């Protein structure tokens, strides 16, 4: 008795395999943002000046300094984007410039190490409660 070509075990096996592959592709999750809790994106002036927004990794800095150093001595407010930091102030040694001067940490010539966020990312504290609340207006702060 002859078996039709399409019903050949090998053809069926291949077909099934292809179907499973397609199904697996459908079930793959889409792209998501799993950036670190507390990462601050600052986009006050960056993008309008043609640079990527800044990502400030809180976790990296709190391994090296206690909160008091930046939020007490250097005058950083507890608000993302609330400090109106610009490159002039940094070069003058204020805010980030207190360390990012080539002595304690990398200097301002390494633009892209800080200006590293995806274009179009809003000023925010990543993973913050406010970011996850469905409220109008002042999100992300």
């Amino acid at each position, binding site marked *: 008795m002859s078996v039709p070509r399409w019903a050949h075990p090998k053809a069926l096996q291949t*077909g099934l395999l292809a179907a499973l592959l397609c199904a697996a592709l459908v079930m793959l999750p889409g792209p998501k943002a*799993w950036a670190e809790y507390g990462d601050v994106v600052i986009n006050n002036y960056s993008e309008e000046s043609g640079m990527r927004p800044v990502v400030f990794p809180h976790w990296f800095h709190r391994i090296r300094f206690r909160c008091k150093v930046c939020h007490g001595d250097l005058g950083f407010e507890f608000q993302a984007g609330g400090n109106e930091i610009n490159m002039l102030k940094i070069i003058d040694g204020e805010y980030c410039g207190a360390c990012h001067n080539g002595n304690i940490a990398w200097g301002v010539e390494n633009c892209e190490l800080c200006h590293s966020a995806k274009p179009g990312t809003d000023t925010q504290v990543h993973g913050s409660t406010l970011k996850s609340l469905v409220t109008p207006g002042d999100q992300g702060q």
Partner: protein
Amino acid sequence: MFRFVSVTLAAVMLVMPLTISAQGKDPLSFNRLMADPETRNAPPPDDGIHDPANPATDMLQSPREAFGPLPDANAGNYVDWVKALQEGLIHPRYDLKDPDMTPTVMDLDIVREVKGSMPDVVFPHKEHTEWLDCANCHPAIFIPQRGANQLSMAAILMGEQCGACHGRVAFPVTQCRACHSRSKTPADDAAKKEEAK
């Protein structure tokens, strides 16, 4: 060949709706937006906010690498920062210039009796003064006087009061019992201890 393709297509069309509906009916599907352990502390090029097209992104340290030796927590960075500091696993400076300056730690617990059914809040000054200066909180955020501060979870969720840090960088407000940690009456505590025995 035509038959092979048609059989494959038929099989795919049969399986696809099944997998799509299975995603909706999975009793664990509520979990789909939460980070699973594999995606936590992702390296910068994969974290979704750093631009992988930026050549310097690859030079940045991966949090996974830095957090390796640090104690685990259930939320936030999944690092117990207070424990990491107290156990001497990290040595963050208290002063920019002077590496030997140490904080003035104040060991004073403030118990706040809460109105609702949640356990009372114990605020430990000790853990806070290890990281912060008095002036970070007093008097702008909290008036340093007993009974002078009307706190509410609504304000905290909106990033005020404790929410200035908790929910942004310190452990998030989903860790209810980290603050609401004292049972309403000592009798409750005694009863629990009896049960445990």
